[in-house]
């Protein structure tokens, strides 16, 4: 049986990756299993300089999901290169760095540095809902996405994936911008902007007031968006949003995703990703399919 997929020029041994911000730089999860069991680790959002993040509370549970407003706290690319990258390299898995910044210049400079590192690809995060600058400023329009993506493309020889926000009217437009700018792939979705209110305090639970919604609650929205984008662009799609099992992963692949990421599902079950690999395998067995690539985009609409 073949589980290998080629995502934007990155050969993944299986289609299961772990989503940015839900797996750190892999250390905490390496206590549980060999990271070589999954297709790729997508790192926590990493910026040019260290970032301290938002005031707490930063997280809150919601029906079948959670809200977060971490604010991209991370140690910066230099620290990553010296400390986390060598650690991750010990495992037989691909390393994709989720890159974030405040300005177009930040993104370009960061990509310049990432291009020199021993990593397998870059996921440009144009979709964080919890920081004031950057993502929301140019991640929501065709022009904005195309501009930053094509500038990063110029300095980056490695595979380039762009991660999109669902907080737009038509996600196929920003996806098209990614393709037109010459990127190798597109990933979706990031979190949906949400808010939870503490009715006794009459105040939002998160210090940031709003946060990004993730988890099984958003899965149908994500599946729909992956399907729509698959109809519109030819570059491969990394699908995510609420995946907790192999069956969920298959659903995204049928909708058109070449590979998937497990996000906050890792928090509920630290073994969610390797279990999803097994789940995909049993689906293929059950349906007598030899190659996982055969299910990509195979949903038949009613």
């Amino acid at each position, binding site marked *: 049986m073949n589980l290998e997929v080629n995502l934007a020029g990155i050969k993944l041994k299986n289609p299961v990756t772990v989503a940015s*911000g*839900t797996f750190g730089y892999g250390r*905490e999860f390496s206590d549980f299993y060999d990271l070589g069991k999954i297709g790729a680790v997508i790192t926590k959002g990493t910026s040019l300089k260290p970032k301290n993040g938002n005031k707490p509370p930063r997280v809150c549970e919601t029906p079948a999901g959670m809200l*977060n407003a971490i604010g991209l706290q991370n140690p910066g690319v230099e620290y990553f290169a010296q400390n986390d990258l060598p650690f991750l390299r010990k495992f037989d898995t691909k390393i994709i760095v989720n890159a974030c910044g405040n300005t177009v210049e930040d993104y370009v400079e960061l990509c310049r540095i990432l291009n020199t590192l021993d990593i397998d690809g870059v996921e440009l995060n144009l979709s964080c809902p919890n920081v004031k600058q950057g993502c929301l400023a140019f991640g929501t329009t065709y022009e904005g996405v195309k501009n930053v993506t094509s500038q990063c493309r110029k300095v980056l020889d490695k595979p380039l994936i762009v991660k999109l926000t669902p907080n737009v009217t038509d996600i196929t437009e920003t996806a098209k911008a990614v393709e037109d700018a010459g990127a190798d792939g597109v990933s979706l979705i990031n979190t949906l902007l949400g808010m939870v209110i503490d009715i006794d305090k009459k105040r939002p639970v998160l210090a940031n007031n709003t946060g990004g919604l993730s*988890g099984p609650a958003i899965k149908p929205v994500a599946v729909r968006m992956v399907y729509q984008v698959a109809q519109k662009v030819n570059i491969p799609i990394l699908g995510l949003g609420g995946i907790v099992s192999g069956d969920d992963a298959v659903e995204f692949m049928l909708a058109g995703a070449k590979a998937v990421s497990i996000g906050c599902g890792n928090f509920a079950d630290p073994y969610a990703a390797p279990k999803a690999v097994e789940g995909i395998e049993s689906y293929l067995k059950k349906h007598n399919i030899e190659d996982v690539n055969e299910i990509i985009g195979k949903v038949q609409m009613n």
Partner: protein
Amino acid sequence: MPKVQVLSKLVKTEKLKEDIFKFSVEAKEIVAQAKIGQFIEIRVTDSVEPFLRRPISIHNLDKENGILEFIFQVKGKGTTILSKKKEGDLIDIIGPLGYGTFDYSKFQKLGIIGGGIGIFPLYELAKEAKKDGKNVNTYLGFRNKDLVILEKEFDEVSNNLVIATDDGSYGKNGFAINFLKEDIENGKIDSIYACGPLPMLRAVKDLAVELNIPCQVSLEEKMACGMGTCVGCSVKTAQSPKDNPEYVNVCKAGPVFDANYVEF
């Protein structure tokens, strides 16, 4: 040995109050390596609702038999489901978690102070410290008589136990910290260990600063992953600049901190 995920058998359940339960689970791998002040994360259901694990502190470790005890108050969806588990059920637990743990090794005369349902993790601390020959002075505060809990248990592991109620309906009248303060001033205490509601912890920290005495506090914050990955449960470091505060994680750097290190 690192943290593990285990399906632990629930061997004993006890209802301590209408809404407070004590569970004993078989968790050899966790118990073998657990340190004082650490916590566990419990998944109360196989379904996706409620979604996140519940962080719960370790109340008692029976190292010989590999039994871990935790006490929880029923507060919401997760703890309601948990409270309905029966002896013999398997519970999905990750632990032990947290690198910041209580450390009394350099001290002799311990002042352990807790309030309300924050007293549970202090039991293992008092027990081990007493075993190690320390002089254990414990101060437990409750709002009123009905809420007093675990008096006998703490009495057994303390050289001196003070129970105080805010309204004087049981034990000494007033806040537990007042009695801790007296004993510090009388030279009976050389270090403080605290867990409880934030206002109490803040007062204890202020007292420790005023009387220049080392103080460790166990903090709580809303958590998602509980193991340092999501950086959700942050607390500000005291030294960090006002305009660009730095944060550490309660779940990883804590839950126990040197009171001077963090701002809460």
